[in-house]
């Protein structure tokens, strides 16, 4: 047992000492935070007011109304508050195309005048009647600006049409009340205060996390096996301890370093989300919020039960995949060879990750239940389902039992392949040879 401990310690310390471990441990939270902040930062940076020329070829006051409404909208808060659009209205009846061409010619020039237009809105009689309006601009790809245009112009045109049909002002006001869908996740018959969007992002993050750690640490076990094999250290080691002790020590050592890394990620993750939550940003996923204001990241609710499920299924999944990857490593002579040979195993993790996206829509479907009982897929599927909506304890336990059975089977096979494989050099074994390896006592 002391020998197993020596292997665990060596594996753990040598791993934690490497630069790549330090970089991975501290860079990943930074990257995650950066990805969370990036939309916000980009949205904030892109804050200059846009100059828009409204070419008004429509009859009546509608052109002026639209110009006023566009000009009244603002972006930013407090001191940073500024108009979203600077509007210039040009009456264009009869010379619309000519004016359009001359304005368009100045848009998007690298060294054009500072007050040149960013876009031109063509307001015609057909636009008012048919609701088809043309905008030409260098910001046509900006969801934020286009969202604002739709949001501001739509009601104005609707009011204009209603007025032209002599509708009552009260009716017009009533017709213009905006929809605001407010979804809230229900857990165990109680509203959680977590929005539907947050639930999606939490499940998404859990999915990616499980995928990443299983792949990362599984491959690390495989590399460690090949390292010992190609350096021929393994020969000295198996003269002093059994191959199973060595395998055990390696898997536990890599697993321990993985847990440490996960713990550091977890703590920094909690810290980051906590600071964000207290920073007063509004809820809503990274994307365009309904009012078109700057996007902010959601702060999902992570329950202790979910953390426990994630950790338990990380450990179970890690043991399962570490066994498979160790067996693959023992079959190969070089890292390059192993990169090809591990494809079937890596595919299993990838399938689970992709399947989860399909299961997210209906996390309690029969298919989701079946996937939760397949040991190769359960380590990803169960935590994601749990993140969406907590599973009954019996279902989780059933899944754990399936995983344990799977692990016992995999370790039994992997240990046999490992025992022979680590001392076999040369050609990669065929299926027939593998079968012989497994049968040799």
């Amino acid at each position, binding site marked *: 047992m002391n020998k197993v401990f020596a292997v665990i310690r*060596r594996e753990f310390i040598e791993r934690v000492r*490497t630069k790549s471990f330090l970089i991975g441990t501290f860079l990943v939270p930074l990257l995650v935070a950066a990805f969370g902040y990036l939309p916000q930062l980009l949205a904030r940076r892109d804050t200059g007011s846009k100059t828009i020329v409204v070419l008004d070829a429509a009859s009546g006051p509608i052109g002026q109304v639209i110009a006023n409404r566009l000009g009244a909208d603002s972006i930013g808060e407090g001191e940073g508050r500024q108009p979203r659009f600077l509007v210039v209205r040009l009456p264009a009846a009869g010379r619309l195309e000519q004016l359009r061409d001359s304005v368009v010619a100045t848009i998007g020039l690298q060294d054009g005048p500072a007050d040149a237009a960013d876009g031109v809105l063509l307001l015609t009689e057909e636009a008012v009647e048919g609701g088809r309006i043309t905008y030409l601009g260098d910001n046509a790809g900006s969801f934020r600006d286009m969202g604002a245009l739709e949001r501001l112009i739509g009601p104005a045109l609707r009011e204009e049409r209603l007025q032209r049909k002599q509708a009552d002002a009260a009716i017009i006001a009533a017709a213009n009340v905006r929809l605001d869908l407010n979804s809230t996740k229900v857990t165990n018959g109680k509203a959680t205060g977590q929005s539907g969007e947050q639930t999606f992002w939490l499940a998404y993050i859990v999915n990616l996390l499980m995928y990443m750690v299983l792949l990362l640490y599984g491959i690390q076990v495989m590399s460690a096996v090949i390292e010992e094999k190609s*350096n*021929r*250290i393994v020969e000295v*080691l198996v*003269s002093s301890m059994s191959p199973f002790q060595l395998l055990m020590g390696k898997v536990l050592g890599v697993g321990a370093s993985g847990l440490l890394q996960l713990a550091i990620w977890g703590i920094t993750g909690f810290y980051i989300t906590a600071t964000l939550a207290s920073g007063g940003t509004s809820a809503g996923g990274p994307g365009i919020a309904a009012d078109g204001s700057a996007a902010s990241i959601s702060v999902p609710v992570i329950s202790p039960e979910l953390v426990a499920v994630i950790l338990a299924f990380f450990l179970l999944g890690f043991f399962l995949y570490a066994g498979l990857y160790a067996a693959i490593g023992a079959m190969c002579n070089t890292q390059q060879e192993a990169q090809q040979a591990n494809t079937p195993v890596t595919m299993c993790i990838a399938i689970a990750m992709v399947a989860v996206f399909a299961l997210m829509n209906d996390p309690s479907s029969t298919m989701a239940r079946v996937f939760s009982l397949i040991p190769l897929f359960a380590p990803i599927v169960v935590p994601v389902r749990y993140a969406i909506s907590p599973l009954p304890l019996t279902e989780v336990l059933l899944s754990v039992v399936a995983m344990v059975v799977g692990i016992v089977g995999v370790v039994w096979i992997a240990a046999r392949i490992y025992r022979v494989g680590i001392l076999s050099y040369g050609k990669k074994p065929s299926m027939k040879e593998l079968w012989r390896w497994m049968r040799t006592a």
Partner: protein
Amino acid sequence: MASSVISVQGVTKRYAGHTAVSALSLEVPAGGIFGLLGPNGAGKTTTIRMLLSIITPDEGRVVLFGGAGSGRELSARIGYLPEERGLYPKMRVLDQLAFLGEAKGMSRWDARKRAKVWLERLGLEDWTMRKVSDLSKGMQQKVQFAGALQHDPDLVILDEPFSGLDPVNSQVMRDVVVDVARSGRTVLFSTHIMEHAEKMCSRIAIIARGEKVLDGNLAEVKGQFGKSHVALTFTRNAAAAAGPLADRTLVARVDDYGASAEVQLTAGADPEALLKALLAVDVGLSRFEVVEPSLQSIFIARVGADAAHPAARQEA
């Protein structure tokens, strides 16, 4: 010499398509240096791996220290230097040795202490905190050598310990091996370099194609080959010696090394008759000595054709 430290009893190991070791029996008595000799592919490494229970024999059995357990169970008493050298390249030298010591069942603290002593002895005390990959190949071999010896094993098994070493390092290691043997412990090493075995071993076994060709005390082995060997050195015109050496009434067998040769006289032939014949052909004879047969000569005589055609080899 109460009992053998190593007793190999009718051991056979087969791999797909060929037999690496066939019904091999060996007795290695306690103390002294035992040489396991054989051409490449003879089964030396396979035999050593079975001694250490890295692989298990298909037939027969290996008894160590009179039957106290398998090589793995007794690994604390055995030091092993494999033929294929290997260390963790990114690990510090001292950590590496401490780990190898722990694998042998030493406490970590003890292992570090012993590792330091050995690194000093081998002249590597300034390298203890360096990574293994920073060391030259010769230094790495010394580190591994220390790894095999640091836990003071009763039995030291070295697979081709001097291959790939420069003369200076080779001498350092040989001195260490001799020291270990002198302190009453048993050393078994394999080699195909006969000069090393001749200088160091008290007992030898020659194996070829997985079978034992001969074994025993070195002096006895040489005695069996008689005193009928003559060592020759030519300073010119070596080709002219071919005539007298081909005379089967004088010479039974020649190991021709070019500028020198070792010949085995035909039974009852007179060495002086050969001397006269060689003087007659003018080869500038600078050495003519009646000698014990060299191990090299015995090896070639007994293994001969086998050595030229080693059995197809499969590493395992």
